[in-house]
Protein backbone atom coordinates (compact mmCIF):
# COMPACT_ATOMS: atom_id res chain seq x y z
CA UNK A 1 0.00 0.00 0.00
CA UNK A 2 2.89 2.31 0.86
CA UNK A 3 4.29 1.99 -2.66
CA UNK A 4 0.86 2.03 -4.30
CA UNK A 5 -0.12 5.58 -3.21
CA UNK A 6 2.95 7.35 -4.63
CA UNK A 7 2.51 5.31 -7.82
CA UNK A 8 -1.10 6.49 -8.20
CA UNK A 9 -0.08 10.09 -7.43
CA UNK A 10 2.70 9.92 -10.01
CA UNK A 11 0.37 8.45 -12.64
CA UNK A 12 -2.20 11.16 -11.95
CA UNK A 13 0.43 13.87 -12.21
CA UNK A 14 1.72 12.50 -15.50
CA UNK A 15 -1.80 12.24 -16.87
CA UNK A 16 -2.58 15.82 -15.84
CA UNK A 17 0.65 16.99 -17.41
CA UNK A 18 -0.14 15.19 -20.63
CA UNK A 19 -3.60 16.77 -20.71
CA UNK A 20 -2.15 20.23 -20.11
CA UNK A 21 0.48 19.70 -22.79
CA UNK A 22 -2.25 19.01 -25.34
CA UNK A 23 -3.55 22.52 -24.87
CA UNK A 24 -0.27 24.38 -24.82
CA UNK A 25 0.47 27.33 -27.08
CA UNK A 26 3.95 28.85 -27.27
CA UNK A 27 4.12 32.45 -28.38
CA UNK A 28 7.04 34.80 -28.91
CA UNK A 29 6.53 38.42 -27.89
CA UNK A 30 8.46 41.61 -27.11
CA UNK A 31 9.66 41.60 -23.53
CA UNK A 32 8.12 44.92 -22.50
CA UNK A 33 4.93 45.28 -20.40
CA UNK A 34 4.58 41.56 -19.75
CA UNK A 35 2.80 42.04 -16.41
CA UNK A 36 0.25 44.28 -18.07
CA UNK A 37 -0.12 41.86 -20.97
CA UNK A 38 -0.71 39.01 -18.53
CA UNK A 39 -3.57 40.88 -16.96
CA UNK A 40 -5.08 42.27 -20.14
CA UNK A 41 -4.61 39.35 -22.51
CA UNK A 42 -2.90 36.16 -21.35
CA UNK A 43 -4.98 35.39 -18.25
CA UNK A 44 -8.39 36.14 -19.84
CA UNK A 45 -7.42 34.05 -22.88
CA UNK A 46 -6.30 31.09 -20.79
CA UNK A 47 -9.65 31.13 -19.01
CA UNK A 48 -11.52 31.06 -22.30
CA UNK A 49 -9.39 28.49 -24.14
CA UNK A 50 -8.71 26.25 -21.16
CA UNK A 51 -5.16 26.00 -22.35
CA UNK A 52 -1.70 26.98 -21.23
CA UNK A 53 0.15 29.89 -22.80
CA UNK A 54 3.93 29.66 -22.81
CA UNK A 55 5.45 33.10 -23.28
CA UNK A 56 8.87 33.50 -24.85
CA UNK A 57 10.35 36.99 -24.75
CA UNK A 58 13.45 38.71 -26.08
CA UNK A 59 14.57 41.26 -28.61
CA UNK A 60 13.68 40.84 -32.27
CA UNK A 61 17.03 39.36 -33.30
CA UNK A 62 16.99 36.72 -30.57
CA UNK A 63 13.41 35.75 -31.28
CA UNK A 64 13.91 35.58 -35.04
CA UNK A 65 17.06 33.49 -34.55
CA UNK A 66 15.09 31.04 -32.42
CA UNK A 67 12.35 30.69 -35.02
CA UNK A 68 14.95 30.11 -37.73
CA UNK A 69 17.00 27.65 -35.68
CA UNK A 70 13.93 25.51 -34.95
CA UNK A 71 12.37 25.68 -38.41
CA UNK A 72 12.31 21.90 -38.82
CA UNK A 73 10.45 21.37 -35.56
CA UNK A 74 8.99 24.73 -34.54
CA UNK A 75 9.11 25.63 -30.86
CA UNK A 76 7.23 28.89 -31.40
CA UNK A 77 3.69 28.58 -32.72
CA UNK A 78 2.82 32.22 -33.11
CA UNK A 79 4.73 35.48 -32.72
CA UNK A 80 4.27 39.24 -32.73
CA UNK A 81 7.02 41.23 -34.39
CA UNK A 82 7.68 44.31 -36.52
CA UNK A 83 6.35 44.18 -40.06
CA UNK A 84 9.78 44.23 -41.70
CA UNK A 85 11.16 41.48 -39.44
CA UNK A 86 8.05 39.45 -40.23
CA UNK A 87 8.62 39.93 -43.95
CA UNK A 88 12.20 38.80 -43.52
CA UNK A 89 10.98 35.56 -41.88
CA UNK A 90 8.34 35.10 -44.58
CA UNK A 91 10.97 35.44 -47.33
CA UNK A 92 12.93 32.63 -45.67
CA UNK A 93 9.88 30.38 -45.81
CA UNK A 94 9.52 30.24 -42.03
CA UNK A 95 5.91 31.43 -41.92
CA UNK A 96 2.59 30.13 -43.18
CA UNK A 97 -0.21 32.29 -44.62
CA UNK A 98 -2.92 33.25 -42.18
CA UNK A 99 -6.43 32.02 -42.92
CA UNK A 100 -8.25 35.28 -42.26
CA UNK A 101 -11.63 33.54 -42.32
CA UNK A 102 -10.72 32.22 -38.87
CA UNK A 103 -10.35 35.74 -37.47
CA UNK A 104 -13.82 37.03 -36.63
CA UNK A 105 -12.57 40.61 -36.16
CA UNK A 106 -10.61 40.72 -39.38
CA UNK A 107 -13.04 43.09 -41.13
CA UNK A 108 -12.86 45.46 -38.19
CA UNK A 109 -9.13 46.03 -38.71
CA UNK A 110 -7.84 49.15 -40.42
CA UNK A 111 -7.24 48.25 -44.08
CA UNK A 112 -3.51 48.87 -43.68
CA UNK A 113 -3.39 46.18 -40.97
CA UNK A 114 -5.24 43.49 -42.92
CA UNK A 115 -2.46 42.30 -45.20
CA UNK A 116 0.61 44.47 -44.65
CA UNK A 117 3.12 41.85 -45.88
CA UNK A 118 1.19 40.45 -48.83
CA UNK A 119 -0.02 36.85 -49.27
CA UNK A 120 -1.64 37.09 -45.78
CA UNK A 121 1.70 36.38 -44.13
CA UNK A 122 0.87 38.65 -41.23
CA UNK A 123 -1.94 40.64 -39.64
CA UNK A 124 -1.30 44.02 -38.02
CA UNK A 125 -2.39 44.23 -34.38
CA UNK A 126 -1.01 47.63 -33.41
CA UNK A 127 0.16 50.88 -34.98
CA UNK A 128 2.59 53.37 -33.59
CA UNK A 129 3.23 56.94 -34.64
CA UNK A 130 6.74 58.29 -34.52
CA UNK A 131 7.59 61.94 -34.11
CA UNK A 132 9.93 64.22 -32.18
CA UNK A 133 9.79 64.66 -28.43
CA UNK A 134 11.32 67.97 -27.35
CA UNK A 135 11.70 70.46 -24.52
CA UNK A 136 9.08 73.07 -25.30
CA UNK A 137 10.66 75.59 -22.90
CA UNK A 138 13.94 75.54 -24.84
CA UNK A 139 13.15 74.98 -28.50
CA UNK A 140 10.37 74.79 -31.09
CA UNK A 141 10.09 72.02 -33.65
CA UNK A 142 8.29 72.70 -36.92
CA UNK A 143 10.03 70.27 -39.21
CA UNK A 144 11.98 67.03 -39.09
CA UNK A 145 14.79 69.06 -40.67
CA UNK A 146 15.12 70.98 -37.38
CA UNK A 147 16.86 67.91 -35.94
CA UNK A 148 19.97 68.79 -37.95
CA UNK A 149 19.58 72.56 -37.57
CA UNK A 150 21.86 74.94 -35.69
CA UNK A 151 19.41 75.42 -32.80
CA UNK A 152 19.69 71.79 -31.76
CA UNK A 153 23.39 71.25 -32.51
CA UNK A 154 24.98 69.45 -29.58
CA UNK A 155 21.61 68.79 -27.94
CA UNK A 156 19.94 66.24 -30.17
CA UNK A 157 19.94 62.46 -30.26
CA UNK A 158 18.91 60.26 -33.17
CA UNK A 159 17.90 56.60 -33.11
CA UNK A 160 20.49 54.11 -34.26
CA UNK A 161 20.03 52.84 -37.81
CA UNK A 162 19.78 49.27 -36.55
CA UNK A 163 16.62 49.92 -34.52
CA UNK A 164 13.03 50.30 -35.69
CA UNK A 165 13.04 54.08 -35.34
CA UNK A 166 16.23 54.57 -37.37
CA UNK A 167 14.81 53.98 -40.86
CA UNK A 168 11.68 56.01 -40.00
CA UNK A 169 13.87 58.97 -39.05
CA UNK A 170 15.79 58.63 -42.31
CA UNK A 171 12.52 58.66 -44.23
CA UNK A 172 11.27 61.82 -42.52
CA UNK A 173 14.62 63.65 -42.80
CA UNK A 174 14.64 62.74 -46.48
CA UNK A 175 11.11 64.07 -46.83
CA UNK A 176 12.08 67.30 -45.07
CA UNK A 177 14.94 67.71 -47.53
CA UNK A 178 12.50 67.34 -50.43
CA UNK A 179 13.17 63.66 -51.16
CA UNK A 180 10.58 61.02 -52.05
CA UNK A 181 11.84 58.29 -49.68
CA UNK A 182 13.29 56.30 -52.57
CA UNK A 183 16.96 56.85 -51.72
CA UNK A 184 18.42 57.70 -48.30
CA UNK A 185 22.06 57.98 -49.41
CA UNK A 186 22.04 61.77 -49.25
CA UNK A 187 20.23 61.78 -45.90
CA UNK A 188 22.78 59.45 -44.28
CA UNK A 189 25.61 61.63 -45.65
CA UNK A 190 23.85 64.67 -44.22
CA UNK A 191 23.63 63.00 -40.78
CA UNK A 192 27.31 62.09 -41.12
CA UNK A 193 28.18 65.73 -41.79
CA UNK A 194 26.35 66.65 -38.57
CA UNK A 195 27.61 63.66 -36.52
CA UNK A 196 29.53 65.88 -34.11
CA UNK A 197 26.33 67.81 -33.36
CA UNK A 198 24.52 64.63 -32.30
CA UNK A 199 25.01 63.66 -28.68
CA UNK A 200 24.54 59.94 -29.28
CA UNK A 201 22.60 57.44 -31.33
CA UNK A 202 20.26 55.72 -28.93
CA UNK A 203 19.10 52.11 -29.17
CA UNK A 204 16.20 51.94 -26.71
CA UNK A 205 13.49 54.44 -25.84
CA UNK A 206 14.28 53.93 -22.14
CA UNK A 207 17.84 55.07 -22.85
CA UNK A 208 16.52 58.21 -24.56
CA UNK A 209 14.11 58.97 -21.70
CA UNK A 210 17.04 58.85 -19.29
CA UNK A 211 19.15 61.17 -21.45
CA UNK A 212 16.33 63.67 -21.81
CA UNK A 213 15.46 63.61 -18.13
CA UNK A 214 19.12 64.29 -17.34
CA UNK A 215 18.98 67.22 -19.80
CA UNK A 216 21.74 65.77 -21.96
CA UNK A 217 19.38 65.88 -24.93
CA UNK A 218 16.51 68.28 -25.61
CA UNK A 219 15.00 66.76 -28.76
CA UNK A 220 14.90 63.34 -30.42
CA UNK A 221 12.64 61.21 -32.63
CA UNK A 222 10.82 58.46 -30.75
CA UNK A 223 7.81 56.15 -31.04
CA UNK A 224 4.54 57.22 -29.46
CA UNK A 225 4.55 54.02 -27.36
CA UNK A 226 7.28 55.64 -25.28
CA UNK A 227 5.41 58.92 -24.72
CA UNK A 228 4.27 57.97 -21.22
CA UNK A 229 7.93 57.95 -20.12
CA UNK A 230 8.19 61.63 -21.06
CA UNK A 231 4.70 62.72 -20.13
CA UNK A 232 5.25 61.79 -16.49
CA UNK A 233 8.50 63.75 -16.27
CA UNK A 234 8.66 67.02 -14.32
CA UNK A 235 10.40 68.57 -17.33
CA UNK A 236 8.17 70.23 -19.98
CA UNK A 237 8.30 67.74 -22.85
CA UNK A 238 6.07 68.12 -25.90
CA UNK A 239 5.19 65.92 -28.86
CA UNK A 240 5.98 67.64 -32.15
CA UNK A 241 3.63 67.77 -35.10
CA UNK A 242 6.11 68.55 -37.89
CA UNK A 243 4.85 69.93 -41.20
CA UNK A 244 5.99 66.73 -42.97
CA UNK A 245 3.69 64.73 -40.69
CA UNK A 246 4.47 61.85 -38.37
CA UNK A 247 6.15 58.60 -39.32
CA UNK A 248 4.49 55.35 -38.42
CA UNK A 249 4.98 51.67 -38.13
CA UNK A 250 3.07 48.54 -37.39
CA UNK A 251 3.65 45.31 -35.53
CA UNK A 252 2.11 42.14 -36.87
CA UNK A 253 1.05 38.67 -35.78
CA UNK A 254 2.64 35.78 -37.61
CA UNK A 255 2.16 32.01 -37.67
CA UNK A 256 5.23 29.79 -37.96
CA UNK A 257 5.19 27.19 -40.74
CA UNK A 258 4.22 23.62 -39.85
CA UNK A 259 3.87 24.24 -36.14
CA UNK A 260 0.98 21.78 -35.76
CA UNK A 261 -0.76 24.03 -33.26
CA UNK A 262 -2.63 26.23 -35.71
CA UNK A 263 -6.04 25.82 -34.11
CA UNK A 264 -4.97 27.28 -30.77
CA UNK A 265 -2.86 29.95 -32.47
CA UNK A 266 -5.90 31.13 -34.45
CA UNK A 267 -7.91 31.22 -31.23
CA UNK A 268 -5.36 33.54 -29.64
CA UNK A 269 -5.06 35.73 -32.75
CA UNK A 270 -8.82 36.03 -32.93
CA UNK A 271 -9.04 36.96 -29.26
CA UNK A 272 -6.12 39.41 -29.45
CA UNK A 273 -7.76 41.25 -32.38
CA UNK A 274 -11.22 41.31 -30.79
CA UNK A 275 -12.70 44.64 -29.81
CA UNK A 276 -12.80 43.48 -26.19
CA UNK A 277 -9.11 42.54 -25.93
CA UNK A 278 -7.86 45.44 -28.04
CA UNK A 279 -9.80 47.86 -25.85
CA UNK A 280 -8.39 46.35 -22.66
CA UNK A 281 -4.83 46.44 -24.05
CA UNK A 282 -5.26 50.06 -25.13
CA UNK A 283 -6.75 51.12 -21.81
CA UNK A 284 -3.74 49.60 -20.07
CA UNK A 285 -1.63 51.86 -22.36
CA UNK A 286 0.25 48.85 -23.74
CA UNK A 287 -0.45 48.98 -27.46
CA UNK A 288 -2.53 51.19 -29.74
CA UNK A 289 -5.46 49.37 -31.33
CA UNK A 290 -5.63 48.16 -34.93
CA UNK A 291 -9.34 47.34 -34.50
CA UNK A 292 -11.46 50.24 -35.79
CA UNK A 293 -14.33 49.48 -33.38
CA UNK A 294 -12.27 50.22 -30.29
CA UNK A 295 -13.54 53.34 -28.54
CA UNK A 296 -11.27 55.11 -26.09
CA UNK A 297 -11.60 58.11 -23.81
CA UNK A 298 -9.73 61.26 -24.83
CA UNK A 299 -7.40 60.80 -21.88
CA UNK A 300 -6.36 57.31 -22.98
CA UNK A 301 -6.31 58.17 -26.68
CA UNK A 302 -3.94 61.06 -26.02
CA UNK A 303 -1.24 58.55 -25.05
CA UNK A 304 -1.69 56.26 -28.04
CA UNK A 305 -1.76 56.19 -31.82
CA UNK A 306 -5.51 56.21 -32.12
CA UNK A 307 -8.14 57.11 -34.68
CA UNK A 308 -8.55 56.73 -38.43
CA UNK A 309 -7.42 60.29 -39.21
CA UNK A 310 -4.10 59.85 -37.44
CA UNK A 311 -3.44 56.30 -38.66
CA UNK A 312 -4.28 57.15 -42.26
CA UNK A 313 -1.97 60.17 -42.13
CA UNK A 314 1.10 58.23 -40.97
CA UNK A 315 4.12 58.02 -43.26
CA UNK A 316 4.81 54.30 -43.31
CA UNK A 317 8.00 52.91 -44.80
CA UNK A 318 7.21 49.72 -46.75
CA UNK A 319 8.68 46.64 -45.02
CA UNK A 320 10.03 45.46 -48.38
CA UNK A 321 12.08 48.66 -48.71
CA UNK A 322 13.58 48.19 -45.25
CA UNK A 323 14.48 44.56 -45.98
CA UNK A 324 16.01 45.40 -49.36
CA UNK A 325 17.97 48.46 -48.30
CA UNK A 326 18.91 47.87 -44.66
CA UNK A 327 22.35 46.36 -45.25
CA UNK A 328 23.33 49.22 -47.56
CA UNK A 329 22.04 51.78 -45.04
CA UNK A 330 24.01 50.16 -42.20
CA UNK A 331 27.21 50.02 -44.31
CA UNK A 332 26.94 53.69 -45.25
CA UNK A 333 25.97 54.61 -41.68
CA UNK A 334 29.03 52.80 -40.28
CA UNK A 335 31.30 54.52 -42.77
CA UNK A 336 29.94 58.06 -42.68
CA UNK A 337 28.15 58.48 -39.36
CA UNK A 338 29.72 56.28 -36.67
CA UNK A 339 33.21 56.33 -38.28
Amino acid at each position, binding site marked *: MKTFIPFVALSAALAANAAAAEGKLTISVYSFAQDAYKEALYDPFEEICDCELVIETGNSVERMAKIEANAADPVIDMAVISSHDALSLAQKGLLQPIDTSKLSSFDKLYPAAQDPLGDNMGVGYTFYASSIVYREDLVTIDSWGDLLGDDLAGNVSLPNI*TGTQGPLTLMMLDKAAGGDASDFTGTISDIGAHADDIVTFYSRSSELAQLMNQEEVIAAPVGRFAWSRFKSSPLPFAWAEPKEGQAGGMNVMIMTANNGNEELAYKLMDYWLSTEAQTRIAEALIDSPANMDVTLSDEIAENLTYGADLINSLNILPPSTIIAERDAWVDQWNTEV*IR
Partner: protein
Amino acid sequence: MFLNRTEGLPLALPAALFTFLVFLVPVGILLSVAFQNVGGGFSLQGYVDFFAQPLNRTVFLRTLKLGVLVAAVSAVIGYAAAFCIVSLPATSRGRVFGLIVLPLMISPVARTYAWIVILGRSGIVNDVIVGLGLSRLPIRFLFTETAVFIGLLQLFLPLMIISLVSAMENVPKDAVPAARVLGANWMQVFFRVILPLTKEGLVVGGTLVFTGALTAYITPAILGGSKVLMLETLLYQKVNVSNDFVSASVIAMILIVMSFSANLLLKRIATAKR
Protein backbone atom coordinates in the same frame (compact mmCIF):
# COMPACT_ATOMS: atom_id res chain seq x y z
CA MET B 1 50.95 17.46 2.12
CA PHE B 2 51.37 14.78 -0.55
CA LEU B 3 54.36 12.55 -1.02
CA ASN B 4 54.52 13.27 -4.75
CA ARG B 5 52.84 15.54 -7.26
CA THR B 6 50.63 12.96 -8.91
CA GLU B 7 49.05 11.92 -5.61
CA GLY B 8 47.07 15.18 -5.36
CA LEU B 9 45.98 15.33 -9.00
CA PRO B 10 42.68 13.42 -8.62
CA LEU B 11 41.49 16.16 -6.24
CA ALA B 12 41.78 18.69 -9.06
CA LEU B 13 39.75 16.51 -11.40
CA PRO B 14 36.22 17.82 -10.53
CA ALA B 15 37.29 21.44 -10.98
CA ALA B 16 39.16 20.63 -14.19
CA LEU B 17 36.22 18.68 -15.56
CA PHE B 18 33.78 21.43 -14.67
CA THR B 19 35.97 24.10 -16.31
CA PHE B 20 36.47 21.94 -19.37
CA LEU B 21 32.77 21.20 -19.87
CA VAL B 22 31.17 24.53 -19.06
CA PHE B 23 33.91 26.90 -20.19
CA LEU B 24 36.48 25.49 -22.59
CA VAL B 25 34.12 23.41 -24.73
CA PRO B 26 31.51 26.19 -25.29
CA VAL B 27 34.24 28.78 -25.89
CA GLY B 28 35.93 26.41 -28.34
CA ILE B 29 32.67 25.85 -30.23
CA LEU B 30 31.97 29.59 -30.29
CA LEU B 31 35.42 30.52 -31.50
CA SER B 32 35.50 27.79 -34.14
CA VAL B 33 32.82 29.75 -36.01
CA ALA B 34 35.45 32.42 -36.68
CA PHE B 35 37.56 29.91 -38.65
CA GLN B 36 34.85 28.40 -40.80
CA ASN B 37 33.63 29.23 -44.28
CA VAL B 38 30.05 28.75 -45.45
CA GLY B 39 30.72 25.09 -46.25
CA GLY B 40 32.15 24.43 -42.79
CA GLY B 41 35.80 24.23 -43.92
CA PHE B 42 38.73 26.10 -42.43
CA SER B 43 38.90 29.74 -43.49
CA LEU B 44 40.36 33.05 -42.33
CA GLN B 45 37.91 34.99 -44.49
CA GLY B 46 36.04 36.20 -41.38
CA TYR B 47 39.17 38.05 -40.26
CA VAL B 48 39.84 39.45 -43.74
CA ASP B 49 36.25 40.71 -43.96
CA PHE B 50 36.40 42.15 -40.46
CA PHE B 51 39.55 44.17 -41.00
CA ALA B 52 38.44 45.23 -44.47
CA GLN B 53 35.83 47.50 -42.93
CA PRO B 54 37.13 50.93 -41.89
CA LEU B 55 34.77 51.09 -38.90
CA ASN B 56 36.11 47.80 -37.52
CA ARG B 57 39.70 48.97 -37.91
CA THR B 58 38.87 52.21 -36.11
CA VAL B 59 37.18 50.31 -33.28
CA PHE B 60 40.10 47.87 -32.99
CA LEU B 61 42.67 50.69 -32.77
CA ARG B 62 40.52 52.66 -30.32
CA THR B 63 40.16 49.63 -28.04
CA LEU B 64 43.91 49.00 -28.16
CA LYS B 65 44.70 52.67 -27.55
CA LEU B 66 42.34 53.00 -24.58
CA GLY B 67 43.53 49.69 -23.11
CA VAL B 68 47.18 50.77 -23.27
CA LEU B 69 46.37 54.26 -22.01
CA VAL B 70 44.32 53.02 -19.05
CA ALA B 71 47.03 50.48 -18.12
CA ALA B 72 49.83 53.08 -18.42
CA VAL B 73 48.05 55.83 -16.45
CA SER B 74 46.91 53.37 -13.78
CA ALA B 75 50.54 52.20 -13.45
CA VAL B 76 51.74 55.79 -12.88
CA ILE B 77 48.98 56.57 -10.36
CA GLY B 78 49.27 53.07 -8.88
CA TYR B 79 52.98 53.38 -8.13
CA ALA B 80 52.49 56.70 -6.38
CA ALA B 81 49.55 55.34 -4.36
CA ALA B 82 51.32 52.05 -3.55
CA PHE B 83 54.47 53.85 -2.41
CA CYS B 84 52.37 56.03 -0.15
CA ILE B 85 50.39 53.06 1.25
CA VAL B 86 53.41 50.91 2.11
CA SER B 87 54.95 53.91 3.89
CA LEU B 88 51.99 54.15 6.27
CA PRO B 89 51.87 52.53 9.73
CA ALA B 90 50.29 49.07 9.69
CA THR B 91 46.89 50.15 11.11
CA SER B 92 46.45 53.07 8.72
CA ARG B 93 47.66 50.90 5.85
CA GLY B 94 44.83 48.43 6.48
CA ARG B 95 42.22 51.19 6.49
CA VAL B 96 43.52 52.82 3.31
CA PHE B 97 43.80 49.44 1.62
CA GLY B 98 40.18 48.78 2.59
CA LEU B 99 39.15 52.04 0.92
CA ILE B 100 40.99 51.02 -2.26
CA VAL B 101 39.25 47.65 -2.31
CA LEU B 102 35.80 49.08 -1.48
CA PRO B 103 34.92 50.18 -5.06
CA LEU B 104 35.52 46.61 -6.25
CA MET B 105 32.60 45.53 -4.08
CA ILE B 106 30.24 47.93 -5.85
CA SER B 107 28.64 46.93 -9.12
CA PRO B 108 30.35 48.38 -12.23
CA VAL B 109 26.89 49.49 -13.37
CA ALA B 110 26.43 51.68 -10.28
CA ARG B 111 29.98 53.00 -10.53
CA THR B 112 29.54 53.84 -14.20
CA TYR B 113 26.17 55.53 -13.68
CA ALA B 114 27.81 57.72 -11.08
CA TRP B 115 29.99 59.11 -13.85
CA ILE B 116 26.89 60.19 -15.76
CA VAL B 117 25.97 62.36 -12.78
CA ILE B 118 29.53 63.69 -12.48
CA LEU B 119 30.33 64.23 -16.17
CA GLY B 120 26.86 65.26 -17.42
CA ARG B 121 26.01 68.69 -18.76
CA SER B 122 24.48 69.58 -15.42
CA GLY B 123 27.00 67.48 -13.47
CA ILE B 124 29.55 68.48 -10.86
CA VAL B 125 32.48 68.87 -13.28
CA ASN B 126 30.54 71.16 -15.62
CA ASP B 127 29.17 73.15 -12.67
CA VAL B 128 32.74 73.87 -11.59
CA ILE B 129 33.96 74.66 -15.12
CA VAL B 130 31.09 77.05 -15.83
CA GLY B 131 31.22 78.45 -12.26
CA LEU B 132 34.91 79.31 -12.60
CA GLY B 133 34.26 80.93 -15.97
CA LEU B 134 36.49 78.45 -17.82
CA SER B 135 33.71 77.91 -20.33
CA ARG B 136 30.49 79.78 -21.05
CA LEU B 137 28.59 76.60 -21.85
CA PRO B 138 28.84 73.11 -20.33
CA ILE B 139 31.43 70.91 -22.03
CA ARG B 140 30.38 67.63 -23.60
CA PHE B 141 32.12 64.82 -21.74
CA LEU B 142 29.64 61.98 -22.03
CA PHE B 143 29.77 59.84 -25.17
CA THR B 144 33.39 60.75 -25.81
CA GLU B 145 36.61 58.75 -25.55
CA THR B 146 37.53 60.88 -22.53
CA ALA B 147 34.48 59.65 -20.64
CA VAL B 148 35.23 56.01 -21.50
CA PHE B 149 38.86 56.47 -20.45
CA ILE B 150 37.88 58.03 -17.08
CA GLY B 151 35.30 55.31 -16.44
CA LEU B 152 37.72 52.48 -17.25
CA LEU B 153 40.51 54.03 -15.22
CA GLN B 154 38.28 54.34 -12.17
CA LEU B 155 37.06 50.80 -12.69
CA PHE B 156 40.48 49.11 -12.86
CA LEU B 157 42.88 51.36 -10.96
CA PRO B 158 42.27 49.44 -7.68
CA LEU B 159 43.55 46.24 -9.32
CA MET B 160 46.81 47.94 -10.24
CA ILE B 161 47.22 49.45 -6.77
CA ILE B 162 46.56 46.12 -5.06
CA SER B 163 49.12 44.35 -7.29
CA LEU B 164 51.75 47.04 -6.74
CA VAL B 165 51.17 47.24 -2.98
CA SER B 166 51.72 43.48 -2.73
CA ALA B 167 54.91 43.79 -4.76
CA MET B 168 56.21 46.80 -2.84
CA GLU B 169 55.65 45.12 0.50
CA ASN B 170 58.36 42.66 -0.55
CA VAL B 171 60.89 45.40 -1.32
CA PRO B 172 63.49 45.47 1.48
CA LYS B 173 62.87 48.46 3.73
CA ASP B 174 66.46 49.63 3.43
CA ALA B 175 66.62 49.54 -0.36
CA VAL B 176 65.32 53.06 -1.01
CA PRO B 177 67.25 54.79 1.82
CA ALA B 178 70.39 52.93 0.72
CA ALA B 179 69.99 54.14 -2.85
CA ARG B 180 69.42 57.68 -1.65
CA VAL B 181 72.50 57.55 0.61
CA LEU B 182 74.53 56.37 -2.36
CA GLY B 183 73.49 59.51 -4.24
CA ALA B 184 70.60 58.32 -6.45
CA ASN B 185 67.91 60.89 -7.19
CA TRP B 186 64.23 59.91 -7.02
CA MET B 187 64.03 59.08 -10.73
CA GLN B 188 67.03 56.79 -10.40
CA VAL B 189 65.59 55.26 -7.25
CA PHE B 190 62.40 54.44 -9.10
CA PHE B 191 63.89 53.12 -12.32
CA ARG B 192 66.97 51.37 -10.84
CA VAL B 193 65.56 50.08 -7.53
CA ILE B 194 61.77 50.10 -7.16
CA LEU B 195 60.79 49.14 -10.72
CA PRO B 196 63.11 46.10 -10.99
CA LEU B 197 62.00 44.86 -7.57
CA THR B 198 58.27 45.27 -8.30
CA LYS B 199 58.11 44.24 -11.94
CA GLU B 200 56.17 41.07 -11.14
CA GLY B 201 53.44 43.20 -9.56
CA LEU B 202 53.46 45.49 -12.57
CA VAL B 203 53.03 42.52 -14.91
CA VAL B 204 50.10 41.18 -12.90
CA GLY B 205 48.49 44.62 -12.49
CA GLY B 206 49.14 45.61 -16.10
CA THR B 207 47.62 42.40 -17.41
CA LEU B 208 44.57 42.70 -15.16
CA VAL B 209 43.97 46.34 -16.08
CA PHE B 210 44.64 45.94 -19.80
CA THR B 211 42.49 42.84 -20.22
CA GLY B 212 39.82 44.36 -17.98
CA ALA B 213 39.73 47.51 -20.10
CA LEU B 214 39.58 45.42 -23.27
CA THR B 215 36.68 43.29 -22.13
CA ALA B 216 34.59 45.68 -20.00
CA TYR B 217 31.19 46.11 -21.58
CA ILE B 218 29.06 48.21 -19.24
CA THR B 219 31.37 51.23 -19.03
CA PRO B 220 31.95 51.76 -22.77
CA ALA B 221 28.27 51.03 -23.44
CA ILE B 222 27.02 53.63 -20.96
CA LEU B 223 29.70 56.32 -21.23
CA GLY B 224 30.58 55.86 -24.90
CA GLY B 225 27.31 54.71 -26.42
CA SER B 226 27.19 53.98 -30.12
CA LYS B 227 29.42 56.95 -30.98
CA VAL B 228 32.47 55.54 -29.19
CA LEU B 229 32.28 51.88 -30.11
CA MET B 230 34.82 49.53 -28.55
CA LEU B 231 35.39 45.91 -29.57
CA GLU B 232 33.19 44.65 -26.74
CA THR B 233 30.26 46.94 -27.59
CA LEU B 234 30.72 46.10 -31.27
CA LEU B 235 30.62 42.39 -30.35
CA TYR B 236 27.32 42.91 -28.54
CA GLN B 237 25.91 44.70 -31.59
CA LYS B 238 27.03 41.88 -33.89
CA VAL B 239 25.22 39.29 -31.75
CA ASN B 240 22.14 41.16 -30.61
CA VAL B 241 21.48 43.50 -33.51
CA SER B 242 22.99 41.97 -36.63
CA ASN B 243 22.82 38.28 -35.64
CA ASP B 244 26.30 38.07 -37.17
CA PHE B 245 27.98 35.33 -35.15
CA VAL B 246 30.98 35.07 -37.46
CA SER B 247 32.03 38.69 -36.86
CA ALA B 248 31.22 38.29 -33.15
CA SER B 249 33.48 35.22 -32.94
CA VAL B 250 36.23 37.06 -34.81
CA ILE B 251 36.01 39.91 -32.28
CA ALA B 252 36.07 37.45 -29.36
CA MET B 253 39.17 35.81 -30.83
CA ILE B 254 40.85 39.20 -31.32
CA LEU B 255 40.14 40.11 -27.68
CA ILE B 256 41.59 36.83 -26.44
CA VAL B 257 44.71 37.24 -28.59
CA MET B 258 45.14 40.83 -27.38
CA SER B 259 44.86 39.75 -23.74
CA PHE B 260 47.40 36.92 -24.07
CA SER B 261 49.73 39.11 -26.11
CA ALA B 262 49.65 41.83 -23.46
CA ASN B 263 50.50 39.31 -20.76
CA LEU B 264 53.36 37.80 -22.78
CA LEU B 265 54.72 41.22 -23.72
CA LEU B 266 54.68 42.47 -20.14
CA LYS B 267 56.36 39.28 -18.91
CA ARG B 268 58.97 39.66 -21.63
CA ILE B 269 59.67 43.23 -20.60
CA ALA B 270 59.80 42.24 -16.95
CA THR B 271 62.28 39.43 -17.53
CA ALA B 272 64.41 41.27 -20.08
CA LYS B 273 67.99 41.72 -18.99
CA ARG B 274 69.06 45.31 -18.58
